[in-house]
C-alpha cells in the first residue's frame, strides 16, 4: 500500500509538467496583451513597455516558460500582472473558500443523490423511480446560472432566509452549496441507481435475502457497499471538478473562489495567476483521485494495491 501511494505521489510531477506546458501553450495562443488590458485604453506606450518588462513579457516565449518552470520548481509561482501580488498569496486567499464550497456541495450531492438513487433502484419502475429519474434529468439540464439566480430570488429576495451572495458567514455558503450540490447530485443519483440495479441482481444479494436478513441490511450492508465503487469514482471526479470548475456558482453568488480567480485571470491574460492556479487544481485533482482509489480498498477488501 505504502509503495503504491508513493508511486502515485511521484506521478504528480509529470502530471504537473504536462499541465504547465498545456496551460502555458494555450495562454500564448489566446490573442490579447496583458499589459493593454491592465493599463486600459488610455495607457501610453511607455507604461505598456514597463508592464511588459516588469513581468518578463518582453522575453522570447521559450525563455518565459523556462523562467516560470525554474521558479515554480523552487516554489515561487510568480507575481500577478493585474494586482502585482504574489500568486501564492492570491491562491492561499481563495483556496479555503473553494475547498469549503466543494466539500459542502459534495455533502449535499451525497445526501440527495445517493438516497434518490437507492430509492429509485429498490423501487424500480415505480412512481418514485420515475420521479427520481425525472428529477435528476432536470438537475443535469438546469443551467447553474439560472438555478442560482432562482434560488436567490426565492430564498434571499422573497423569504429573506439567506444572503444574496457574498461571503463572510456560514449562511453565505448555504445557497451556493445547494446549487452546486444539486447539479452533482443528479449525476450521482443516476450512477447510484444504475450501480445498485447491477448489484441487486447478484447472487450474494439473493443469498442474503434467502438467509432471511432484513431488507434494510441487504440494501445498505450488502448491496450498497458493493455498488459504491463506481459511485465513489463519480464523487472523486465531481469533487475535483468543483475545485476549479465551480466558477459559475462562484460568479452568481460572488464568492471569491479559485474558479473565478482562473476565469478572471484568463480574461485579464494574467498568465502567472492562471498557471499557478492550474497547478494547484491539478495537484488537488490527483490527490482526490488517489484518495478515491484508496477508498476503493476500504469498500471492497478484494482490491489490493501492491
Amino acid at each position, binding site marked *: 500500500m505504502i509503495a503504491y501511494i508513493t508511486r502515485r505521489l511521484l506521478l504528480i510531477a509529470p502530471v504537473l509538467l504536462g499541465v504547465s506546458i498545456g496551460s502555458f501553450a494555450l495562454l500564448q495562443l489566446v490573442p*490579447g496583451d496583458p499589459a493593454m488590458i491592465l493599463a486600459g485604453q488610455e495607457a501610453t506606450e511607455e507604461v505598456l513597455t514597463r508592464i511588459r518588462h516588469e513581468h518578463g513579457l518582453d522575453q522570447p516565449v521559450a525563455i518565459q516558460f523556462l523562467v516560470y518552470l525554474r521558479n515554480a520548481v523552487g516554489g515561487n509561482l510568480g507575481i500577478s500582472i493585474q494586482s502585482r501580488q504574489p500568486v501564492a498569496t492570491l491562491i492561499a486567499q481563495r483556496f479555503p473558500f473553494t475547498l469549503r464550497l466543494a466539500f459542502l456541495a459534495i455533502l449535499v450531492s451525497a445526501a440527495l443523490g445517493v438516497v434518490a438513487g437507492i430509492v429509485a433502484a429498490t423501487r424500480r419502475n415505480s412512481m418514485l423511480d420515475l420521479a427520481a429519474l425525472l428529477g435528476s434529468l432536470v438537475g443535469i439540464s438546469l443551467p447553474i446560472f439560472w438555478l442560482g439566480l432562482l434560488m436567490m430570488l426565492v430564498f434571499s429576495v422573497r423569504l429573506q432566509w439567506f444572503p*444574496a451572495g457574498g461571503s463572510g458567514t456560514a449562511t453565505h455558503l448555504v445557497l451556493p452549496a445547494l446549487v452546486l450540490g444539486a447539479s452533482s447530485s443528479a449525476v450521482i443519483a443516476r450512477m447510484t441507481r444504475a450501480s445498485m440495479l447491477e448489484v441487486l441482481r447478484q447472487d450474494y444479494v439473493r443469498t442474503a435475502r434467502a438467509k432471511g436478513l432484513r431488507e434494510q441490511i441487504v440494501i445498505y450492508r450488502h448491496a450498497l457497499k458493493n455498488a459504491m465503487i463506481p459511485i465513489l469514482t463519480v464523487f472523486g471526479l465531481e469533487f475535483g471538478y468543483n475545485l476549479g470548475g465551480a466558477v459559475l456558482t462562484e460568479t452568481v453568488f460572488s464568492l*471569491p473562489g479559485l474558479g473565478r480567480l482562473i476565469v478572471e485571470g484568463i480574461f485579464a491574460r494574467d498568465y502567472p495567476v492562471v498557471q499557478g492556479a492550474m497547478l494547484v487544481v491539478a495537484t488537488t485533482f490527483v490527490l482526490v483521485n488517489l484518495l478515491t482509489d484508496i477508498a476503493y480498498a476500504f469498500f471492497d477488501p478484494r482490491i489490493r494495491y501492491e
Partner: protein
Amino acid sequence: MRRVVGLSLSAMLLGSAALPMAVPTAAQQAVRGGTLTFATGADPDSLDPQNTQSNPGEQVNRMMHENLIRFNAKMQLEPGLAESWSVSKDGLTWTFKLRKGVKFHDGTAFDAKAVKYFFDRVLGDEKPFKASLYTPVVQAAEVVDDATVRVRLKQPFGAFLFIMAHSAGAIVSPAAHQKWGKDLALHPVGTGPFKFVEWVKGDHVTMERNDAYWGGRPNLDRVLVKTVREDQSRVLMLESGDADLIVNIPTEEIPRLKKDPRFTIESSPTARALFIVINVKKKPFDDVRVRQALNYAVNRDAIVKELFQNNAQVIPGPVSPLQNGYAQLSGYAHDPKKARELLAQAGKPSLRVKLWSPKGRFVKDYELAQAVQQDLAAVGVEATLSTLEWGAYLAATKAPVDQTDRELFLLGWSPSTGEARWGTFPLLHSSQFAPKGDNRGFFASRALDEAIDKATLATTDPARLGALREAQQIAINEAPYIFLISPNMIVGTSKKVRDVVNLPLELTYLTEKSWKEK
C-alpha cells in the same frame, strides 16, 4: 497674477439637456451611523492612486484620498485640499494655497511638503503608472511656505487643473509611501472622509469614518465595497437588502426597479462618448464623402429612444457634453437620401464593409452596432458584424496600419481628466497613430492637429475652449468616426440612502455627507 478659482462650465451645461440629479423628497436631517454596502462589478486593481488604472480602483480611492482640486457632480472644478490657486501670465507657474490643519489618516500633517513629495514621486525614478499624466507637463514643484506650493510647468498647459483633479492627483501620506513602498497599493493613507480598514482581494474593501476629517465628521460609520461581478446578482442583492447601492444596472431591469418604492434608480449622463471608428487608410474610407454618408445613415434619435430607452443622449461629434470644452455644434441628422447621394458621388452606390463590436464592454455595445448595421443596410451599405472578447479586441484594434484589415469598429472613450482635449488628442491627433497611441483609425488632419495643439498650450480658458470648439467642428466635418451617443450611468440605491456622488466619469462614491436612514 490672475485668480481663477472654480472654473465653471455651467454655461455649457445649461445649454444641454437638464440633468436628472437625485432630488431628496424633502430636506431631511441627515442620520448618523450605519454601514453602507456598495456592490460594484469588479475588484480594484490597486489602492495606490498613482498606480490605479481602473474605475473600480478609482472610486474606492476617492473615498479615502483627496486632490488639491476636485470635481463636483457636474464636473465643475472646486477647491479640495487647495483653498485657492493662481497662475502666472505666461501660464508656466501655478501657485496653490493649501488648506490648513488637515491631517493624513496616519496622523502626519498634510502640508506643502506633502504636495512637493507627490510631484517628486510622479516625476522621479519610481515612475508609477499614472506618472505619464504629469511628466510631459510638469517641471518641478517647490515649497514656498507650509501652506503654499509653487509648480513650474515645462510648457503652458490649458488642462493643468484637470490633471490635478484626476484620480491620480490624489495626495498620499509621504510617511506611508516611505513605509510601504510598492505595498502602498494595499495600505492606502490619504486625507479623505473614510479610512482604510481591510481589502480582501476579489471580495470586498472595508473603510471606516475618519473622525478627524477637515470637512466635518462623516455621517456613515462604515463603507463596505463588495465585488459582485454578475449584473443580475447585484440587482438581487439590492432587492434582498444585502446591498444598499449598486452600479451598472442592466437597462431591461430599470423599468421594474423604478416602479418599486423601495429603491431610487438614478440615470445620469456621463463623459463617455461611444462611436464607430473608421479606418481612413482603407479604401473607400479615405473619401470623406463615404464617411459623411455613413454618418447621415444612422438614426441616432431612434437608437436613444428605442435601444437605450432614453438612458443616453445623441452627441454631434467626438466629445460628450460632460467633457469640459464640449461645443454645442450641429451634427449629422438622419438623412438616408443624402447618404445615398454622397455614396453615389463617391462612386460607391453599394458597399460591403466589416463592422466589429465588443460585447458587454460598454452598455449595449453589440446591440448598438446591430442598430447601426440596420441603418447602414437601408442606404445600401452591407455590414458584416463580428465580435471579439475584450482583451483580444483591444489588441486587434491597436494593430499598426500595415498589419490590419479592420474597417469599422465600435469603441467608447471617457477621458479620465474630464476635458475635451483628452477626448480628442489621443484619438485623433496625427502623432498618436496606433499602436503607439490611440488613433486607431489613422486619421490625420493638419488643421485638427493645430487646433488641438492650440488648446493644449492655451494660457487662458477662453483660448482653450475656442480651440477645442474649432477641433470639434473640424472633426465633425471630416467624420473620422460614425458619431453616436453618450450613454448614461445607472445607479440604484435603497431609498434609505442619500447623497451618493455619481461623477460623470462613471465613478460612484460616498462622501462625508452621504447617509443612511436607520
